[in-house]
């Protein structure tokens, strides 16, 4: 039983992704849609809306065209079914000044730098949800925009 708050979790690591997802579901904090790859995440975002996203970002940027940053930029530019202003947190191995500038420009809510704990991701999503609930209610009264789209 979740609260109607829907989160997209993009993380290639099976153990981290599954543990975060199972924990959020068992606590009833959020419904979680998992994606191990950016390609899948991109397809998901084109099809449906989420209330928030937590996305692993590779840095330095890998050679292929599917990246966490690309996905975030697509969301921010309205090229997805999600609200362009949707809260997004990122998970990174390390954060340089250059990456931080890029993330700030993308309006990132939180940067989780490894080694972080599952607890940190759960708390981050909890805060995103609390922030969403402080916003004026949607037309159907739900805290999350994804529920009405």
């Amino acid at each position, binding site marked *: 039983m979740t609260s109607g708050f829907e989160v997209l979790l993009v993380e*290639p*690591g*099976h*153990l*981290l992704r*599954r*543990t975060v997802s*199972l*924990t959020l579901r*068992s*606590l009833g904090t959020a419904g979680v849609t998992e994606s*191990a790859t950016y390609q899948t995440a991109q397809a998901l975002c084109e099809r449906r809306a989420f209330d928030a996203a937590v996305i692993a970002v590779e840095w330095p940027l890998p050679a292929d065209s599917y990246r966490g940053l690309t996905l975030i930029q697509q969301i921010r530019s309205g090229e997805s079914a999600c609200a362009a202003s949707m809260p997004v947190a990122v998970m990174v191995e390390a954060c340089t000044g250059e990456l931080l500038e890029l993330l700030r420009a993308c309006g990132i809510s939180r940067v989780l730098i490894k*080694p972080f*704990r*599952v*607890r940190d991701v*759960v*708390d981050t999503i909890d805060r995103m949800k609390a922030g969403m609930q402080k916003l004026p209610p949607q037309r159907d009264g739900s805290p999350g925009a994804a529920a009405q789209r």
Partner: protein
Amino acid sequence: MIKPPIPANEDQRLALLYELVLLDTPPERRLDRIVEFAAKEFAVPICLISLVDSERQWFKARVGLDVCETPRDISFCGHALGSSEVLMVPDALLDARFHDNPLVTGPPHIRFYAGAPLVCRDGLAIGTLCLIDTAPRTLDEVELAILASLRELAVVALTRTADPDEEGEADD
């Protein structure tokens, strides 16, 4: 010290444990990953996947402990088999079941224990995913949920063949 009780479903529990062919088998990376991940998540020096055999507990995966088995009579994990809930012992020295247990009074000097029963089919618990610390502590609701999630993943890894998604991943 109070010896761990023998669960009512002991025969079926052991039959399942033997059927899974886990005891005395080589380490497996996907299970090692779970205990390493849990030890880091909870910042504990010891984390085990302990399988409770008739007379011993044998560690299929372990972090922070050199021995691969201990007698069941003195096991903490044996006490966790009677329920599907996490058995948490915040301070073993204050617990009548454990205060004079040789694992408490001697190495590895257990003070904190949290064991999530590895409940497989038909509600049969074959062992635990457990966290051990040498200092008293406790787990809050979120931490208990995280431990239960890792337990779920451990049960899946113990009871079925490897998933390419798990095997192919980079270490978390």
